[in-house]
């Protein structure tokens, strides 16, 4: 919030004036109100492996993270370029594979990748769109300095928190929205619905019927699935509701089977079709891939997009962006060592205590080593894992992330954050002005994942 000369940074000026006039006890009471509101609404997530505390709240901090319009515009341009490149990359690797032929990305990294689906080779999804919904994780290190931390092109989650956080802030502090011109995010469900409807499959005649596919109420993100279906006014279905009838995917309704045209799936590729992928999957729909390839359903995001989430692929993103857009990437990548390469592995092993080491397919902050905060013993144990399967890991330096203020009992204190803006892709790319700000609540911590004690904040993009 503050700049080096201890004045509030420009986008925070109005907020700062308002905050100075507030009674701290009242703000802390408001924080508790917010928590009750979330609990009452049932905005909870499941933590796997915790028997008795099966439902948890993600802590919410009431101080918004504020981004100036100017900074946002730069950021948005970079994101748009990146998302366009991701779609072009997916189209290429499942068709001509020019990027491999040009020697910019090694063949085995693509073809031996578990997230690469040979079933998608030669198939063009409706509208040529692979990733309809993208969440790009970004960190800010200083004025106009942003790095992309990772791309979430498979099934990015968290957008319900973006919406509920805003809703909560507007209920609790309406006056702040008079003092600041905050760009709205509320249109997201409507935009998502339009964007999904615009990519109906060739086999759809008439108004496309849309559904959200969820693994069910025990999934950690179930709240979000039901929330999005509810806000869009579309069906929320499980695999057991669906079956392939007469070459269409149909859902079992109280009056018989009815066709679905666009499926926003929140189920991983592996579980989508037991006939094509994991035969033991009870979450998917046997035969849906055949329907898909026959042009009778749109699956969003397309199967096989998860390869973009791979952290080894990530390390090639600067090349990928340049290859498809013909311009240098506007957003920087965090320098990344691929442990599969001998020199890099050697460097990583020698500098473990300075680096963050991640699994290439990992997510949720699981299975990673944060060198600077790890003990000698943890580093040594991790080094063994690294040596055993080097290609399973990448390493990055710890960035000096900028901090934003959070409310604590003694007042405000700085914490590290990241930012996940949401992008919708149809015939155009729409970036929602805002996103999910995740905050590492533990002092000094760099891990923002909700499964590892992170919280969230409302994210304001100012109109200026």
């Amino acid at each position, binding site marked *: 919030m503050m700049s080096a000369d201890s004045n509030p940074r420009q986008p925070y000026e109005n907020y700062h004036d308002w905050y100075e006039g507030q009674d701290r006890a009242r703000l802390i009471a408001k924080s508790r109100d917010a928590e009750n509101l979330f*609990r*009452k*609404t*049932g905005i909870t997530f499941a933590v796997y492996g915790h028997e008795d505390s099966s439902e948890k709240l993600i802590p919410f901090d009431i101080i918004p993270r504020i981004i100036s319009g100017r900074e946002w515009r730069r950021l948005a341009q970079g994101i748009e370029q990146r998302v366009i490149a991701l779609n072009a990359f997916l189209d290429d690797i499942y068709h001509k594979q020019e990027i491999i032929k040009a020697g910019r990305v090694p063949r085995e990294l693509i073809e031996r990748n578990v997230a690469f689906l040979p079933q998608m080779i030669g198939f063009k999804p409706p509208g040529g769109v692979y990733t309809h919904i993208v969440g790009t994780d970004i960190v800010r290190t200083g004025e106009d300095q942003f790095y992309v931390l990772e791309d979430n092109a498979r099934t990015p989650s968290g957008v319900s928190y973006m919406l509920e956080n805003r809703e909560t802030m507007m209920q609790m502090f309406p006056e702040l929205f008079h003092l600041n011109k905050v760009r709205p995010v509320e249109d997201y469900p409507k935009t998502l619905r339009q964007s999904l409807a615009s990519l109906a499959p060739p086999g759809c005649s008439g108004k496309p019927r849309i559904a959200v596919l969820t693994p*069910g*109420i025990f999934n950690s993100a*179930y709240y979000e699935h*039901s929330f999005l*279906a*509810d806000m869009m006014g579309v*069906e*929320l*279905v*499980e695999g*057991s*509701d669906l079956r392939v009838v007469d070459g269409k995917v149909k*859902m*079992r*309704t*109280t*009056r*018989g089977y009815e066709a679905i045209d666009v499926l926003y799936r929140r189920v991983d590729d592996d579980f989508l079709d037991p006939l094509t992928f994991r035969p033991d999957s009870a979450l998917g729909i046997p035969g849906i891939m055949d329907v898909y390839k026959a042009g009778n359903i749109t699956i969003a995001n397309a199967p096989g997009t998860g390869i973009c989430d791979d952290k080894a692929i990530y390390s090639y993103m600067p090349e990928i962006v340049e290859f498809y857009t013909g311009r240098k990437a506007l957003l920087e990548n965090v320098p990344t060592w691929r442990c599969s390469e001998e020199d890099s592995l050697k460097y990583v092993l020698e500098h473990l205590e300075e680096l963050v080491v991640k699994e290439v397919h990992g997510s949720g902050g699981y299975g990673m080593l944060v060198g600077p905060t790890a003990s000698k013993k943890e580093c040594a144990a991790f080094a063994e894992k690294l040596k055993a399967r080097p290609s399973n890991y990448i390493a990055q330096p710890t960035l000096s992330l900028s901090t934003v203020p959070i409310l604590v009992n003694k007042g405000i204190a700085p914490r590290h954050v990241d930012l996940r803006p949401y992008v919708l892709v149809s015939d155009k790319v729409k970036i929602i002005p805002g996103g999910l700000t995740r905050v590492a609540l533990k002092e000094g911590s760099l891990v923002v994942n909700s499964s590892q004690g992170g919280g969230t904040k409302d994210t304001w993009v100012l109109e200026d």
Partner: protein
Amino acid sequence: MLGRTANGLYWMFRYIERGENIARLIDAGLRMALTRSGSSDEDWDGVLQSAGVREDFDEVHGKLTGADAIDYLLRDPANPSSVMSCIESARNNARMVRTALTRETWEATNECWIELKLALSKRVKPADMPEVIGTIKRCTALIRGAFHGTMLRDDIYNFSRIGTFIERADNTARILDVKYYVLLPAIAKVGSSLDNMQWESILRSVSAHRSYSWVYDGDYSATNISDFLILNDRMPRSLAYSYDKIVSNLGYLAKLYGDNHAAHETASATLMLLRSRNIDDIMEQGLHEFIEEFIVHNNRLGEEISEGYRFYR
């Protein structure tokens, strides 16, 4: 609407109804224990039977005591019909059908669960019982209020209502089935204080000890109580009233979807039967047999609805 959603709504409301009725049974049992001198543990035998968990109780507890019976009925997770289990199941179903519910109905259900989870986290002390029973009744009443005040009158509403009344008819019939001997004219010693207490307990377990007096001018009689609970179409927990509601809600579905199922026939036949019989006939031909048959038909209706509307694959 998805078959699974119809199923979820139906069971959500069955469980809410069941949870509330179990609380009422406990309330009536407590009242009996208060008004009777000496040991009252055998009264809990009847309460457990009415709740349909008498045998299951024995598997968990060696000996029947009032305190254990109350705990089993109120909060034992091993008892799928305990109040806490019912509310837990109702909420799980509500989460599953979240998109079919208004925000108000969902929040009332969720808050009911949050509040009861807290109130029932430990064995309830006898002194706290009235407050806990009150909390259960208030929480479920709030769900009902939110539901009636905010839900669209469409098929979502119809499946919810059908669930409510299938469960309610079942619960009322069970109470009658367990206590039928108290209502037999041959055995009943009219005016004895024991019978009066038993009868009042029956009425209390359907929250009708006051309304009964309004309808039947105060005097307790086996025939009038049976009439009230079985045939009176103004008594909201009677079999006749429940079936009136089931038939009309099934009727809306038939109109909306343009087709009839076996369930429509079964429900109408039962309603006709309840409308055409009078209580003296029923008492004469055997109250017990009548109720037993009713319970069988009611269960069958539930299955026919689930099949007709594709609740499952």
